[in-house]
């Protein structure tokens, strides 16, 4: 904590990963666009390839903005998880991102759910 002396102007890190039993949870934050999606994708895939979780949870609770790159991010993770018969759950999608999510027909492709903040964060 001591290193963080400056008052933050920017986002917190766009992705934090938590592994619990056979579930890998990616807590996403800030703005998801083509730029940030790359960093998020690389972080998730590197860990997922290694631990091969049965479930990958993508938590969008702290995402303030998302364009179609976020849809690509979800679709890409679905493909990866299919490789070892795992599945993807999309968690806490903010209501204002629902429009782009339903445009993409994502509700037919993966599980959507809400959980309480306290359960999902550590």
């Amino acid at each position: 904590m001591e290193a963080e002396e400056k008052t933050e102007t920017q986002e917190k890190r766009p992705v934090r990963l938590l592994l619990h039993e056979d579930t890998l949870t990616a807590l996403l934050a800030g703005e998801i666009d083509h730029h940030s999606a790359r960093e998020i994708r690389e972080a998730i895939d590197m860990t997922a390839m290694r631990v091969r979780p049965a479930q990958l949870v993508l938590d969008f609770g702290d995402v303030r903005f998302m364009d179609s790159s976020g849809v690509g991010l979800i679709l890409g993770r679905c493909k990866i998880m299919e490789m070892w018969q795992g599945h993807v759950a999309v968690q806490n999608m903010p209501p204002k991102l629902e429009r782009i999510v339903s445009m993409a027909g994502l509700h037919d492709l993966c599980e959507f759910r809400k959980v309480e903040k306290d359960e999902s964060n550590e």
Partner: protein
Amino acid sequence: MKAMNEMHLNFPSISTNEGFARAAVAAFAVQLDPTVDELCDLKTAVSEAVTNSIIHGYRDTIGKVYIDCKLLQDNWIQVKVRDHGCGIENVEQAMEPLYTTAGDERAGLGFAVMKNFTDKLKVQSKPGKGTTVIMEKAFSPRVRQNG
């Protein structure tokens, strides 16, 4: 239509500028007093167009992306996003939802989002010359509180 105000912006096609571009357009658009949702829709559409210029138009090269923004009468805003990149062979096909030339990580929804999140969309493109996307959006007139 006469523009009541306008701004012109350009920057190199590097991906950090996607966030800058939509923030700059939003900072200009607030003059029309949009709602949070309207502004978010506009930002999303701008983000798609700018991202396309960066990843499709210029691919692995660096070129300039141009944004021309105009406030028109009756709470309309026009945003033009231009590149001098590779252009699009078949615009109609490119605009189809789910069509993408860029592989697994692109959803092929960029144009669909631009169309859905604005009120008018026009795409002009010439292979080898570049692409221009013109979007227009009307913000709802706001009833002002007097207190």
